[in-house]
């Protein structure tokens, strides 16, 4: 047994209160409804480029979003709709970016999952896996230099992304600098079609924490309570100055890699195992069992989420796309006098 690994059951001080649980569940629901809507818009030909969903990973992702505070830094990845919404993203920002509205934060220059508002702490991911982690480190490093205390950064990635050099470089860098970085790895058993045995040879990715000299936590990614506890504790420890934390969640994505993919390669055995449980359904059962919500409340919440999503996607679809002549789309530098002419 690895010494630094904390078992999810001993999750410590941060306990999921009813209010936190409900708040988290409702963001999960909003993310699921929005993801489903985006999938159908994609199938209807209304969205260009890839559509990647967080289905089955909402409990983990939302735990990050509800654990972060206003001045924190978040580097979400492709399956983090729930975390983005729970942190600070509006449904409209997401809808606009997927639907090519010029009014969205990326103004049609980039799309879909590649969106964010760095000034508000939500970084706009580049595609290259592993590349966002050291950027979070840089933000935290700058804050330390400026004497800003009490903020944390969370970076997300999948099992496959942990194989990159960037992941290793950034984890080691965070550890050396003792930065308040929480690295959340969603081990969903596949990287696109590649199963984890072709990705890494250690027992669990959490064992990597030992090599970096940082605490590591393993959590059942289908269980919202466990995710809230473990991610919450990791964030609290980073915030308290205990340095980087690694969280590895075990789960399964309940969709294709992207909406173009039927994921026939996923082992039926895995789907039937505990990993294949839907975190939404488990959370709903828990809400009912605790008498925190009855069927009527659950359907009211769903209706509210659907309404929000319908409004935002309808609005974004009515908005203009970018006009290549309307603003200076062809300036890659902010320093105008250093721009080269575009012939």
């Amino acid at each position, binding site marked *: 047994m690895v010494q630094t690994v904390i078992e999810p059951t001993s999750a410590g001080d941060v306990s999921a209160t009813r209010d936190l649980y409900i708040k988290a569940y409702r963001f999960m629901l909003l993310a699921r409804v929005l993801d489903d809507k985006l999938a159908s818009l994609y199938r209807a030909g209304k969205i260009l480029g890839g559509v990647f969903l967080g289905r089955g990973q909402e409990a983990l992702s939302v735990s990050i979003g509800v654990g972060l505070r206003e001045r924190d830094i978040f580097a979400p990845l492709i399956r983090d709709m729930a975390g983005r919404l729970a942190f600070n993203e509006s449904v409209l920002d997401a809808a606009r970016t997927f639907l090519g509205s010029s009014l969205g934060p990326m103004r049609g220059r980039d799309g879909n999952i590649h969106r964010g508002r760095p000034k508000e702490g939500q970084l706009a991911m580049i595609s290259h896996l592993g*590349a966002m982690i050291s*950027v979070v480190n*840089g933000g935290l490093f700058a804050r330390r230099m400026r004497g800003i205390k009490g903020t944390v950064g969370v970076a997300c990635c999948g099992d496959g992304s942990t194989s990159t050099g960037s992941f290793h470089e950034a984890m080691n860098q965070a550890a050396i600098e003792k930065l308040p970085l929480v690295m959340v790895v969603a081990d969903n058993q596949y990287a696109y079609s590649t199963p984890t045995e072709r990705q890494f040879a250690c027992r669990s990715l959490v064992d990597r924490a030992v090599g970096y000299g940082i605490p590591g936590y393993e959590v059942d990614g289908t269980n919202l309570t466990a995710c809230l506890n473990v991610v919450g504790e990791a964030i609290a420890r980073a915030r308290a100055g205990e340095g980087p934390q690694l969280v590895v969640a075990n789960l399964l994505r309940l969709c294709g890699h992207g909406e173009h993919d039927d994921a026939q390669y996923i082992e039926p055995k895995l789907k039937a195992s505990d990993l294949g449980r839907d975190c939404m359904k488990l959370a709903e059962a828990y809400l009912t069992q605790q008498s925190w919500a009855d069927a009527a409340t659950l359907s009211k919440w769903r209706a509210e989420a659907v309404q929000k999503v319908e409004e935002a996607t309808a609005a974004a679809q009515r908005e203009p796309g970018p006009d290549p002549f309307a603003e200076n789309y062809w300036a890659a530098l*902010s320093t105008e006098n*250093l*721009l*080269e002419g575009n012939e």
Partner: protein
Amino acid sequence: MSITYLEAIREAQAKALRDDPRVFIYGQDVGAFGGAFKATKGLAKEFPGRVLDAPIAEDAMAGLAIGAALEGMRPILEMQFADFSTVAFNQIVNQAATMFWRTNISCPITVRLPCGGTAGGGPFHSQTMEAIYAHYPGLVVLTPATVEDAYSMLLEAVAIDDPVIFCEHKFLYYHLKADSLPTEALPVGKARIARVGRDLTLVTYSAMVHESLAAADELLSEGWEVEVVDLRSVKPLDTDTVIASVARTGRLLCVGEAWPWGGVTAEVITRVVCEGYDLLDAPPQRLNAKDTPVPYHPNLWSAHRPTARSIAAAARKVLQR
């Protein structure tokens, strides 16, 4: 007083650290040790906590600088050798260079690349990388050839709101000297006429400016007056100054230490041919390094890169047509 190109780089960094609390330096061995070439000598002591040793992780070094720049800092990254910046290539060209265009937030990082050949440097400690960085939109690429430019352009690089690739030439570090640091300078984006002449325009940059000036001396003894244009910055590239010079001389030779395929010399010739074809009295020519890795042995190395002799020979061909 006399100051070397390398000392000018150190002095510029000291001034940047002194004048701007947002500046910090991050790179391998740059702290107490003062850097592999001593470009940060004494700075860690003078500016505690602001000149920091990085792990051997160029990707994460660049990522950290980018994240800090987003938070309003002005990081200077030292790559130990330009060659190793390939490990940071992804962060530089995909993260830093796209930041402003994608998010409307500028990314003011300065990446110092000790570049170019020195005797014995060999394939992995000699590369000149201006062409590949200049190829990507969103980067400013500087190639100072003089002590004065090393100083003033590095200060300007730190002040520029966009990512700057600062190609400092290792061959110039120690032998190039000036009497004092400049108090004024041409702005980034303006080329400099390093020598006036009427028979041929020789466009070059970085260490090749000095080889080209030596070639011009040799050609003068044969009666040719060669104008040498020092580009100073390869992106943006001062096409106007180049074309104005070609308008005076009617002939063009471009010299670069980089490899021949594409690159700065090809770009200059393309621009002159496209915009000033009628100004040319002879086909423009270029001279680059050979299309092989940079050799280790001095005999091979001096035949691999352009030198005053090979530049003079190339110039004669353009002049005699």
